[in-house]
């Protein structure tokens, strides 16, 4: 369950307006798995992202309870780097466009 994104309602479409796809951010997702310890996952979030222990714990609990959680967002290359770092720690991490 990813973070819900609000899309502005289009009430009027202009013929002159070119179809511009909004700049879609990418996200990194961590999936729950039965092996990684909760304390370890929290620790990894602090190490990789510099999150406070409080924020890291909240994200870890989201992963644990919801099955997955968005842990960072940004450009595609940035997310690929985050996935690499998280996978180096043995977390089950993937990346994708935010609107999927």
């Amino acid at each position: 369950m990813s973070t819900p994104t609000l899309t502005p309602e289009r009430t009027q479409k202009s013929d002159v307006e070119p179809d511009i796809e909004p700049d879609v951010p990418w996200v990194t997702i961590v999936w729950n798995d039965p092996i990684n310890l909760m304390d370890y996952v929290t620790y990894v979030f602090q190490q990789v992202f510099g999150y406070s222990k409080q924020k890291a714990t909240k994200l870890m609990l989201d992963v644990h309870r919801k099955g997955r959680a968005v842990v960072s967002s940004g450009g595609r290359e940035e997310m690929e780097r985050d996935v690499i770092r998280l996978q180096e720690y043995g977390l089950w991490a993937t990346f994708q466009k935010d609107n999927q």
Partner: protein
Amino acid sequence: MAQGFSMTRKGVEATFERGEVVLLRELISDLVGRLDAGGAATPVGTDPLEAMTGISSAPVEAPVDPIVARLLPDAHATDKEVADEFRRLADGDLRASRVAAYSAVLEDLAAAPDGHVKINREEAEVWLRVINDLRLATGTVADVTEDLDYTDLDSLDPDDPRAAFLHLYDWLTWLQSRLLGVLTG
């Protein structure tokens, strides 16, 4: 029994029994072998750019070995093309950085007189990652699930091939918890 990890004035310390040193060495060496076995389709050394960057010029297959597959999972949940492209770019580096970490721990073990390991904080963080990989490996073989009940360990049929790995997994979990406590304490 191992003392587990503790923080002292000299740094992070642990004392392992001879059998435990052998066990750690064998488990880690096994992982080195698994990670070295697969990897980029193009043999290292034939493409100088690839050797330099770790990026494969050819497609890289998703690992067949379930342990390696868990260590290096698909990076996109649904889009195979994106996952394959990520693997082509990152697989070499991901394997290399793991093998480097394993080698560092093997060296620390080799340098430990009578199983007494003394490492600094930075080295301890490498141990943390490596022990986690060992838990991922043994847990994958033992088919560990979310509702693993440790009280069941003793009631396991000793002929159950998973039994040995579950005991290993249990010990590694304890070891990792101790190390985590030391690093975050």
